[in-house]
């Protein structure tokens, strides 16, 4: 009987011990801690956060998201925590997720001094979010299947019979792909955008689970080409000599390529607001953009920010002329249509 009591006591103690472990957010502002949730891949974001911690002495407690949960786990978490926020800063890989938080009224305005020379198109006009280090949508292609003469140069080329069943896009309901489609609706208008999507469907577009999956399929030769982001394309090129990428729609009258900036924002009611602002200032520096350029070929938005030669420059890319806030609103509107479009391919 004594042994049972001991066992029960041990279990209860373990339970209590674990409960007392790593308790963070009830600490006071005086404690040098900042809590950041990020949907940017841990392999890229973690070194930046570690560098901030080393420089400032402010401990960073990060929550990362995963490919498996389509990088929406942290966003749902912030929304679920709205009554009692734990997160100070949200660092997103695109403006779309930030737009959701803005719509929910979960952000507080902060105009960082380090973002002065970032073009205004990449900033919210009320300082709810600020963009930095951008990716672009590209077409990754397999050189062993497509030679120089038959590489698509426009998204409309993907409707041609030559590429039937040979190109992939990620799930149109998530991530940068959904934003890309919303941008097309913005720039082409609803009728033309729907016609394009129907044509893609008729031409046997392959739906991959994620941008990473698109990358894998192109590298392995399962498909000839696929739409993905520059960081995935960069990794693919490092991994295999058989692949390369191209920016679509760069002609004079073409619609341009979608540029997707990282965004950072301050959460309303966050427990460590001042440290949150410091982290935002750090993230929005040219120095951070240089780190991200080197690690994942993300293009700096600061003018004159030097980067390695193999990283594309925004100056040489014709961007799609969209308003990010407006595109986020369009995205919300077209989601039911995208859902039906995706399901009709099953």
């Amino acid at each position, binding site marked *: *009987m004594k042994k049972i009591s001991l066992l029960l006591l041990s279990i209860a103690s373990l339970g209590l011990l*674990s409960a*007392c472990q790593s308790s963070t957010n009830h600490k006071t502002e005086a404690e040098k801690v900042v809590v950041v949730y990020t949907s940017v*891949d841990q392999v890229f974001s973690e070194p930046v956060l570690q560098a901030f911690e080393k420089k400032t002495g402010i401990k960073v407690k990060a929550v990362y998201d*995963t*490919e498996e949960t389509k990088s929406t786990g942290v966003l749902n978490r912030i929304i679920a925590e709205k009554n009692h926020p734990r997160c100070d800063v949200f660092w997103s890989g695109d403006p779309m997720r930030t737009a959701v938080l803005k719509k929910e009224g979960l952000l507080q305005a902060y105009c960082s001094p380090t973002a002065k020379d970032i073009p205004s198109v990449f900033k919210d006009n009320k300082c709810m979010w600020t963009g930095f280090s951008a990716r672009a949508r590209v077409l990754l292609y397999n050189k062993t299947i497509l030679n120089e003469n038959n590489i698509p140069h426009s998204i409309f080329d993907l409707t041609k019979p030559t590429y039937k069943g040979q190109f992939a896009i990620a799930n149109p309901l998530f991530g940068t792909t959904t934003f890309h489609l919303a941008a097309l609706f913005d720039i082409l208008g609803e009728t033309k955008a729907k016609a394009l999507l129907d044509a893609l469907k008729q031409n046997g577009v392959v739906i991959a689970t994620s941008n990473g999956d698109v990358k894998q399929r192109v590298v392995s030769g399962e498909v000839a080409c696929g739409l993905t982001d520059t960081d995935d394309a960069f990794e693919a090129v490092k991994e295999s000599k058989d692949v390369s990428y191209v920016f679509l729609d760069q002609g004079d009258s073409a619609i341009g390529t979608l540029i997707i900036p990282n965004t950072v924002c301050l959460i309303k009611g966050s427990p460590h607001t001042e440290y949150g602002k410091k982290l935002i200032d750090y993230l929005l520096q040219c120095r951070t953009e240089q780190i991200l350029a080197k690690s994942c070929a993300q293009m700096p938005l600061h003018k004159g920010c030097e980067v390695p030669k193999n990283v594309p420059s925004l100056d040489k890319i014709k961007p799609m002329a969209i308003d990010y806030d407006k595109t986020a609103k369009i995205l919300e509107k077209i989601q039911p249509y995208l859902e039906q479009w995706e*399901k009709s391919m099953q």
Partner: protein
Amino acid sequence: MGKKHAVIPYSFLAIFVVFILFIVVPIAYLLTETGQSINYFVQSFQDSFFPALLLRTIIIGFTVSLLTTIVGSLLGFFLYRTSIFASGILKLLWIIPLLLSPYIEAVAIKKVGILLSMPHLFYSFSGVVLTLFIAYLPLAIVITGIAFYNTGRNLEEAAYLNAPKYKVAWKITILSNKHAIFSSIALIFIFSVSSFSVPSYMGVNVLATDIFTHFAAFYNYNYAVAQSILLVFLCFLILLGDTKYIEKTAFFTKSNTNTNRFYGFSLKNKIVVSFVLWGLWLILIAFPIVTLFFNLFNNNLSELFTVWHILFPAIKQSVILALIASVFIVVIGYVSAFLSIRYHFKLFDKILLFVFAVPSIVFGIALIRFYGFSWGEIIYSSTAILIIGYTGKYSFIASKILGTSMQQINISLDEVAELSGAKLWKRIYYIWLPLLSPVIFLSFITGFIFSFKELSLTVMVYPPGMNLLPVKVYTLMANTPRIFIEAMLFVVFSVTLFILAIMWMIYIWWLHKKGRVYK
């Protein structure tokens, strides 16, 4: 069998109440908060794709559960009741898929498909079925195999007087354990219809992926929660059949006579059967795993040291967390099974099923919403929330495993002890624990494996700054070279195997100390 009108022990009732408060109330809170109404259900059925989606989900569930249980029962019989070559080792080798997340199985199957130029093997309905079949086959083998092993010897001998051994094997050994077979079908059905990662990876739309989409893409919580209720309802229908069946054919199959004598079914074609069993293992288990790790082995495992250094802090935390959670899982599972079998109090079991069937993302949101207030800080910001999550999610499995074995123990063994003056906890310690020690161990390692590799729930609720293995591996997977990914998966696989081996040795040592022999 069992006391219908007996008073439930207060300690067990207390555990039941604690479970309700900590785990069920958050889910109920979410349901009331999202304001469920019949409209959301109607909305689902108005979607023209929904009936096909629902049908696909049910077909996957039944196909996987039936196929897995049929094959698993046959394998269970041969592994646990015949003397094929190296059956002891093969029993352990068949458990390997349990050490890997079904998502990883899907990646392995895809690689096999590419290697064999068989695209229909993956990115399709058959790919989903094949992956889930391999992932859950070990469960079916263990559940049915142990039941076959525990069949009363006299029952088989009585039949042997009238029929040759192969007929005895079918009519008595296998058919008298229909409860175990049906339990296997029910459990695997629930796993299959709740599975998100495999259908998502294979690009097949099912109810679980649709729920996820509505949560994660559209932030339409109400609709998603309504669909979750539908999913839970599906699982309950299966459980209803399971419960009815057990009630109708309540029985003992464990003989009271000496079972130390091994009564195996001798095989005329032992070589052929051994060849088939080993061959199946090589094709279904070894080949996909080797394909998965092929590049790694080709590169002389050079990435392993780098990966180990990166993952070690996460491994440490995850192992401790999973071990703690497993203790709670076994305790809750035991209490639920005991109340169900001994006192006919089945509510706890049904509640465990309900929580198990709730999709991880919904459960995660429920925990955040409930504990997200300032009073819940001590739980929310600590590992306690993860322990609560894993306990809630996997206690059902422990309850099922323990319940199936408890039914096979003569209640009079407990009644005699009670008459002798032993109170409940003494009877548990002196009577039930020794009799159930193998399945308690099995429940513990099952709880450990599932908690250790649980991703969806972990990513929803893990405290900021905490380093946990599933999150670390999957976040790094997004953008690292293939060889690095393979190295990470190999490390995870090896660590799980190593921990299980340590637990196994501790268990054998404990048996030895108690003067018992491992069978």
